[in-house]
């Protein structure tokens, strides 16, 4: 099989916040009743996490569940495990009205590190990033495209967007993190 690479192939930018391509991440999109016991169990079996409360994310990129909408969750697993994990979930949810799709290669993931991650993100999105609690997954608009943002701690933010806009997203974030563009 051909070697899988991300859209940006590991690009980084060192501004007053560091913008990194987070590399290959396994992602499984699940639609269904998130309160259903079988759905919860299938998600937990592959990610090791319980179903998060609305708008929250449980765990992180190497094992987590993000609440995307009342009937959609994004299950995060290591990239290499994603196809098998999706197959396992599909088997487990055979009798439930649910849809499981592996979307690892349809998304791009970024990690932002630095004291001022909130500021860099706030400049390019209408969401109130200053008030975003750590661990809340905020789906919003980033400049002209959709993105999902969460903070895993006060100085680390993660962002997921469509792979087709990865270059645009990287440039927007890099420009926002450019030294000299700090908000005074």
């Amino acid at each position, binding site marked *: 099989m051909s070697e899988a690479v991300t859209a940006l192939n590991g690009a980084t930018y060192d501004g007053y916040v560091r913008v990194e391509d987070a590399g290959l991440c396994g992602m499984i999109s699940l639609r269904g009743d998130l309160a259903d016991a079988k759905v919860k169990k299938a998600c937990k079996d592959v990610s090791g996490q319980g179903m998060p409360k609305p708008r929250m994310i449980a765990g992180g990129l190497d094992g987590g569940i993000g609440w995307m*909408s*009342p009937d959609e969750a994004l299950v995060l697993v290591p990239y290499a495990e994603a196809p098998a994990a999706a197959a396992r979930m599909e088997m487990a949810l055979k009798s439930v009205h649910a849809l499981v799709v592996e979307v690892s290669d349809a998304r791009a993931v970024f990690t932002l590190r630095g004291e001022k991650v909130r500021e860099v993100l706030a400049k390019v999105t209408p969401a109130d990033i200053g008030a975003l609690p750590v661990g809340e997954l905020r*789906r919003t*608009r980033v400049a002209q495209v959709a993105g999902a943002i969460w903070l895993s701690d006060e100085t680390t933010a993660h962002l997921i967007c469509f792979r087709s806009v990865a270059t645009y997203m990287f440039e927007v974030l890099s420009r926002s993190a450019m030294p000299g563009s700090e908000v005074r």
Partner: protein
Amino acid sequence: MLTLTCPYCGIAADETELSPGGQAHLTRFGPGASEEDFESYLFMRENPKGVHIERWRHSNGCGKWFHAARCTATLEVFGTYSAQTTEPPEELRKIISEKRPGWSWGASS
């Protein structure tokens, strides 16, 4: 800037995170309907200066459609509610009537 609270995810979404969906609570007239009904379904829209009841989609967010009631003259938002209904909830109608006596909206006022 218009800010509507999505009833599905609870986010106070900025106008730029939403997509407008036009007049709410239309009755669909399809094949077999009279030409007058079909024309009014396609083209005739309420457009008062004041209370509007609209459909919106939280497109840069949870992706759900919902309903919103707002005033086009002042941009005051009276409330938002679920899409799984054919008319504005009684409670919301009361709020609007208190603030804008005599308002009307198509067949659902």
